[in-house]
């Protein structure tokens, strides 16, 4: 049972040591972005990797959270924390509302439906310029809690780290619980899960909502951390980027989600030296990954070195 959390301890050590190794603010910023992405990708992996469903519009939920945190305090004077919760509730409700009809679909159709959902959110954000600033985006007031403004990168680093640790811990627990086994079971065989009593629709809806809430919360965090939001947060390209992180890191692997998020957040920076060829290099690396490690980095390496998965 201790083994189950081994990876979590490793992550904790890395998080604790990292600030002392980081040479400057640029890398601290990068680390925070990695952490934010890691939480979103983890939430998405619960849906895609564990439950076997796809969401091609996940950036839409990030957009909802981000713009809730920007619009509600700016235009309506809401407290940022209330705005963050409101964003999460909105994203969760929207997910729950569309999930029932959407999860009647499978495969390509499910992909199309979720893709459409993400695009609709993006269009709304672009067109409601009166509130959202349209394609130009808008500034976000700083996050305050109990009268303190959280404005330094150091603060955000620790906040994101704590969120990440809790998410990883909760995800490991969840996937090794009756709830998680039901989800993985319906991925393995929907009819088998059904005949042992799993209400398949309810479980798909639950994990979709949960994953949307994860995305919305981290959208809010992104908004306050960066201090600025634009609709590109919610665009299709961003959704695809997140799915790529899931796939490269490893489907149905908690730590694969982290590795995927960290690598693919860092990679564009590392490739910046290729000047103009970075997208090509990025593409080549992804293709090579998929050819030689179709199961994703972490599951492949775990199998190669004889470890048990996770």
């Amino acid at each position, binding site marked *: 049972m201790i083994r189950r959390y081994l990876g979590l301890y490793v992550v904790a050590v890395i998080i604790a040591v990292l600030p002392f190794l980081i040479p400057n603010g640029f890398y601290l910023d990068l680390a925070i972005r990695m952490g934010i992405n890691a939480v979103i990708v983890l939430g998405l992996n619960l849906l895609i990797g564990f439950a076997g469903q796809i969401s091609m519009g996940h950036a839409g939920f990030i957009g909802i959270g981000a713009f809730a945190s920007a619009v509600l305090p700016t235009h309506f004077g809401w407290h940022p924390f209330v705005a963050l919760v409101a964003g999460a509730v909105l994203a969760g409700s929207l997910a729950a509302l569309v999930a029932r009809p959407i999860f009647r679909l499978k495969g390509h159709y499910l992909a199309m439906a979720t893709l459409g959902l993400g695009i609709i959110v993006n269009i709304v954000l672009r067109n409601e310029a009166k509130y959202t600033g349209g394609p130009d985006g808008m500034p976000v007031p700083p996050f305050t809690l109990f009268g303190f403004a959280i404005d330094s990168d150091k603060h955000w680093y620790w906040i994101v780290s704590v969120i990440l640790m809790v998410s990883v811990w*909760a995800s490991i627990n969840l996937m090794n619980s009756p709830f998680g086994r039901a989800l993985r079971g319906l991925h*393995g065989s929907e009819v088998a899960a059904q005949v042992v009593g799993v209400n398949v629709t309810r479980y798909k809806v639950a994990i979709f909502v949960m994953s949307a809430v994860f995305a919305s919360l981290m959208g809010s965090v992104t908004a306050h951390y960066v201090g600025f939001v634009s609709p590109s947060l919610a665009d299709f390209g961003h959704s695809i980027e997140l799915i790529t992180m899931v796939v490269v890191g490893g489907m149905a692997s908690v730590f694969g989600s982290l590795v995927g998020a960290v690598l693919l957040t860092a990679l564009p920076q590392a490739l910046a030296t290729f000047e103009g060829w970075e997208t090509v290099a990025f593409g080549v690396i992804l293709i090579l990954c998929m050819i030689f490690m179709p199961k994703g980095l972490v599951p492949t390496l775990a199998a190669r070195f004889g470890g048990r998965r996770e």
Partner: protein
Amino acid sequence: MSLLSVISLSKTFDGVKAVQNVSFSVEPGVIYSVIGPNGAGKTTLFNLITGIYTPSQGDIRVDGASVIGKLPNELAALGVARTFQNLQICMNMDACENVMVGAHLRLDRNLFKAAFRFPALARRDRALKQEAEDLMRFVGLENYLTSRADSMPYGALKRLEIARALALKPRLLFLDEPAAGLNPRETLDVDGLVRKIADSGVTVVLVEHNMKMVMNLSDRILVMDYGKKLVEGTRDEVRHHPDVIAAYLGA
């Protein structure tokens, strides 16, 4: 009262009459077999009773109450479990986890408690693992307690399906061709296993092509052909019935 009553049940797929006007009832504690040539409608009958298909006509009653329109998961809650002719194993999970999924309805499925691993839930989960391993031993899978499902041979997976169904603690267990694709030795083992399950108080409904096994185990037998009930009765009644001999030998 009969545990299961099927009354004038019919199912039509775009004009194909897969099951026509079939009636029978299963008393508690028996082993009841459904036999018939390929395409006779046996699996369709199972799919109707376990809620995977909705009947076109007729009624199905469990303990006297109609279960028409209930989903498979709702039938599971009534104590109806089944296995599949074409394996339905979750290959993304351990063998033991497959069995644990079977106990789904007996567990606390709360998402929040699970995420924060409440002690009571964690304790129950450890006890469940033990229970699942005992079930695997019961069906003869003691060598696969720590195996991944995708590394197990076909015969073992067939038993794993039975263990998963038993984890539901069913009152009524439907076994769809448990001996299909097994060698004579394995078939004999399954024969013994079905007897053991019945002796533990579970009512078993069996679809099977292996006549030796059917004749050895069954208290009553339903013979189907072309979607219709041909004969129903005890094994001796069925064995010597001219229509059965005709259907099987084509005479």
